[in-house]
């Protein structure tokens, strides 16, 4: 059971909620799919069991064979190839690995060369599995890393998998949502939060996923979000007030539920409600 935590807006508390809920559910798995800026490992400080290098397709060009016809440069829609001194050359960071240039080169001067785009750290913390994806700086997209995280997670067996998704509503979020069985939308009651929350609801609806909402950083006035949830038949399974002490713990990358019984109880309540919605 993959539960995806999404929000549209950044900094609403996706990591905070997914980490703390995962920490309260026995034998759960935490998957950090925010590969551009993964932070879950800072909280879990997992013992690393395995490193998986993620490769994307790339190409290398044999300059001795290249006759400078530039058919490959003309074919590449990603502008990943260019001519330099009458020879084709590749900018690996721009290559999407479609393999078109390999097919079009009549001199067979181009061949496939896997390029590393990132790494997945597989580890554990107590009885929780912790998988974190890291995109190499300079690389464009973590979609392949995300796909790989989910395929690794499948080998873990059954249980609840807490998926910490990236911000936004683009291709990486969609890749995550695609693999998830249930979505937990983390909403922040501010004008920015509300606007992005609505976009996120549209995304989950258009992808046909069931979802519940958790409000974070509440300062008492959450009417706009509560009303929107009601209109869209979205269950509200928790409201976390803004709390300076809690923020302090979170800023230090500590797991709040491990710090006090009171916080553990708050997260247990949210989990009870979320779980009953999932099982409904």
């Amino acid at each position, binding site marked *: 059971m993959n539960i995806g935590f999404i929000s*549209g*807006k*950044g*900094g*609403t508390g996706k*990591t905070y909620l997914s980490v703390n809920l995962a920490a309260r559910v026995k034998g759960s798995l935490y998957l950090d799919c*925010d590969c*551009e*800026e993964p*932070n879950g490992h*800072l909280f879990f400080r997992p013992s690393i069991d395995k490193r998986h290098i993620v490769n994307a*397709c790339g190409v290398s060009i044999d300059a001795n064979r290249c006759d400078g016809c530039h058919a490959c440069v003309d*074919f590449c*829609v*990603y502008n990943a190839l260019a001519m330099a001194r009458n020879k084709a050359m590749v900018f690996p960071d721009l290559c*999407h*690995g*479609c*393999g*078109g240039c390999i*097919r*079009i080169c009549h001199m067979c001067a181009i061949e496939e060369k896997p390029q590393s785009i990132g790494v997945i750290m597989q580890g554990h913390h107590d009885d929780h599995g912790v998988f974190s994806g890291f*995109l190499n*700086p*300079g*690389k*464009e*997209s*973590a979609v392949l890393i995300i796909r790989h995280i989910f395929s690794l997670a499948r080998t873990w067996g059954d249980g609840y998998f807490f998926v910490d998704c*990236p*911000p*936004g*509503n*683009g*291709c*990486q*979020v*969609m890749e995550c949502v695609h693999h998830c069985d249930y979505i937990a939308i983390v909403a*922040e009651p*501010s*004008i*920015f939060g509300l*606007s*992005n929350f609505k*976009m996120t609801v*549209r*995304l989950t609806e*258009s992808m046909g996923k069931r979802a519940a909402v958790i409000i974070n950083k509440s*300062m008492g006035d959450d009417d706009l979000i509560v009303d929107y949830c009601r209109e869209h038949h979205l269950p509200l399974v928790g409201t976390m007030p*803004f709390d*300076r002490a809690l*923020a*302090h713990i*979170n*800023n*230090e*990358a500590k797991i709040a539920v491990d710090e006090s019984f009171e916080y553990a109880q708050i997260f247990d309540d949210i989990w009870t409600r979320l779980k009953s919605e999932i099982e409904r």
Partner: protein
Amino acid sequence: MKKILILSGKGGTGKTTITGALARLLRVEYVVDCDVEAPNIHLLYPDTILHEIAPYYGLDKAWIDPVACTGCGSCFSACRFEAIHPHQAHFVVDEMACEGCRVCQLVCPESAIQMKKVVGGKIFACFGTPNLYSAELKMGSGNSGLLVSRIKLQLDEHIHEDAIALIDGPPGIGCPVIASIKGVDFIIFVTEPSYSGLHDLERIFKMVKKQCIPSAVIINKYDLHDEITQSIMDFAEKESLPIIGKIPFDPSVVHAQNQGKTMLDASYSINQSVRESCDKLKQLID
């Protein structure tokens, strides 16, 4: 012309909030929202009405003519993006997965595949004080980096020589961020005193460093954690990044924005600290 980009790595550190405040203090003529997956800066200008100025076409998408397709499966085996699926006796393209590479078209023996232009989003603007540019990515169209480049092209067409443009960047370090960095003159990193904020600042800085663009740091909500604020200052010093401002945490910032005001109206101490950051920024960009 000066283009100043606001980045953070981590989301929710206050990029948009601070962009709005600096735009007002600097009286900039152009404000650009490059966070196309979650655009928000227009919300700080409740009286402005954004108009679509251009459609955004992403990369073309493949389309298989079901009449001409013989179902040989060449396209299916050549596609690296798992974007082609069997459907009854022929094959169809999953537009969401298609990256427009044209390899399927190249391998199709029946010439049954065409590339089609697909609207992937919209670019909006409101010409006034300031001139506001924003964009929206259509659900599922992907390639937000290309859309970022397109908004910036619109800006380049309109902006005049001695104007300043403030660009609100996307979170992360991926393609939209890479696209937003191209051609800017100055970068402000907005961070917050959390280990996540610091970790993400280190990652984004690692990516930007090679390009030697003058940069500075603003620590937002700095009083939420003194020690981590100190760690951020140590990191900045090590990397010779000037810290141009430390803004305290104040819940009235959210209240002010919810009422259609900027953080400058939140409280005296917030106002003062943003003004100080702005003065230091001016010295650095002049």
